[in-house]
């Protein structure tokens, strides 16, 4: 149904260019690649600017609190080829830090703030990493699974 | 030409000046409501088999059912409270009801002065009416299927 980018070629090219930074991430969507957090900004810039892939749009930015790690999920879409890719960054549970991609897409600005606010993922290099939905003095990050629901 | 749009706008408003008005004179003129309108709830107590499906399907746990078992080991309803203050009016409970005991009615004037007054006690406020007394034909089968699922 959805057009998916050729993952093998993409991963191969990325690894060649930036050194071992990406691998295929197996899940039910068959469109995910896993990227090392350190190389994220380079990879995203490449994905955006390489005319072969032409991912001009950051469709969605999400963060998931899996039992073993935090995963930040970036959904990308190309307007010319109409193909898709999902970039996943797996983060350490204790210290979830990932470089901000605000410099690549400004759309990430508000969405990263939201992920920081609700999930507690720190986006290093973000120009204004403050809470966006909750009050400034809120304690905790509600979308984490260990968040105490009872007030 | 500059100003044509301005004159056209004046024409439109002048045209509506003499038209029939479309607002309803609310308290005197009651709105005609569609059959599926979700106003408030009615519970036909004799039909209710206290299966609890409505309470289960409710997203906000609005419904509180109290029941006791009678001599035939059959459940009997003894209380049916709805915390209507947090009801979403989604209608899942009405859809889930196997015996069509819980129904929507067209009572939409639900504004009250305090939160507590909004809540409904459908068991306590039940007024018996003759057609309710015949239990639904397939009530027994429905009950079984409900328990099976």
């Amino acid at each position, binding site marked *: 149904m959805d057009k998916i980018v050729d993952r093998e070629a993409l991963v191969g090219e990325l690894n060649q260019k930036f050194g071992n930074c990406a691998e295929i991430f197996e899940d039910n969507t068959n469109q995910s690649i896993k990227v090392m957090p350190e190389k994220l900004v380079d990879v995203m810039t490449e994905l955006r600017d390489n005319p072969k892939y032409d991912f001009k749009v950051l469709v969605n930015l999400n963060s998931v609190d899996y039992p073993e790690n935090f995963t930040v999920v970036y959904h990308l879409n190309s307007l010319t080829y109409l193909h898709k890719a999902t970039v996943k960054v797996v983060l350490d549970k204790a210290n979830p830090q990932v470089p901000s991609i605000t410099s690549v897409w400004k759309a990430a600005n508000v969405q990263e703030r939201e992920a920081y606010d609700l999930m507690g993922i720190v986006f290093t290099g973000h120009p204004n990493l403050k809470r966006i*939905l909750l009050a400034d003095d809120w304690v905790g990050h509600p979308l984490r699974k260990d968040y105490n629901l009872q007030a | 030409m500059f100003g044509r749009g301005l004159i056209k706008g004046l024409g439109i408003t002048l045209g509506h000046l003499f038209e029939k008005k479309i607002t309803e004179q609310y308290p005197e003129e009651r709105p005609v409501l569609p059959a599926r309108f979700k106003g408030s709830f009615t519970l036909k107590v004799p039909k209710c088999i206290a299966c609890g499906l409505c309470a289960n399907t409710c997203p906000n746990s609005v419904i509180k059912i109290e029941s006791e078992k009678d001599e035939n080991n059959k459940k009997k309803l003894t209380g049916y409270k709805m915390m209507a203050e947090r009801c979403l009016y989604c209608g899942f409970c009405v859809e889930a009801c196997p015996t069509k005991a819980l129904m929507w009615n067209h009572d939409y004037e639900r504004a009250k002065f305090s939160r507590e007054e909004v809540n409904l006690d459908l068991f306590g406020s039940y007024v018996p009416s003759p057609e309710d007394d015949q239990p639904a034909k397939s009530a027994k089968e429905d009950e079984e299927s409900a328990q099976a699922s």
Partner: protein
Amino acid sequence: MLKTQELTLNLGPHHPSTHGVFRCVLNLDGEYITKAVNHTGYLHRGLEKLAESRTYTQFIPYNGRLDYCSGMLNELTYVTAVEKLMGITEEIPERAEYIRVIMSEVQRLANHAIYFASMALDTAGATAWFYGFRDREKCLDLIEMASGQRMMPNYMRIGGVSDDLDENWFKLLKELVDYMPSAVDEYEGILTGNEIFQARTVGVGPVSKEMALDYGITGPNARASGIDTDLRRDEPYSVYDRFKFNVPVRKNGDSFDRVMIRIDEMRESIKIIEQAMKDVPEGPIMAKVPKVLKPPVGEVYHRIENAKGHLGFHLVSDGSTKPYRNHIYSPCFVNLGIFPEMAEGLHLMDAVVALASVDIVLGEVDR
């Protein structure tokens, strides 16, 4: 030499033209904005967290609370996302698909009517506001007839729709479809054709194509900036690939284009409804889905063309009856991100117009 000083103005959270409880702190030099900072979150209800403790079906009514001007479309997004996750997209009965398309286009008409109305009010054209709401009411009457509620319909179900539509409903729909073009003409006559309105909106808050891509602007706002994108055509969901319609695209990306895109889209929506109502097949309206939904482990990201942009749901399932994670990509939230840059250098009056033209609904911004 006179000493001058910048004025800090709190626009909102209770201000008539912030469309809800949005707050924007403006630095004013005279009446020109030098800096704008968005503050959102006054309507945050934690819907994403709520979803984690509701079953897949139980979350459907909450979608109406997202963008309360287009409840049907939100529900459609959510149920198609769940269907995709369960892999039952192909099993939805034809009739249900047609009803879904008709419903979402009626809802889109209602949404664009309310957009037009609030745009009129934000330029102080109170009469045009009433005309917009008059026609929205006609659309909502149809939705109320089908679902029982006007704004939070809870009509879509995972696997189909909740209730069938009868002859009478389609007769009323025909009346609406016959009536709407004249109403849209009236909108053009009273507001968008008006020279004062054009002077207020042309060239105000322009968003270039590059800027729109950079900020992730979607939907009508992106099309106003010249990005030729419409998910109904590009990634057809439901049965949209069977209908012929144009995707209006404009070039300048200013407030006037953003209004006109909506007006053009209303005409296209009418076309789609006309085509859809002609060949609605008979048949069931619900696919055979189990009572207790347990999607397989995995995740899905699904988005559709909502009235305000691309509304997307990222659902992560762990195989239980409740979603492990339900992320809502809200178009208003992301579109609003452009406002600080857009507002810079604008007059206070223009900023209000620019904000209105982006079409935000705070229920969706704050979730």
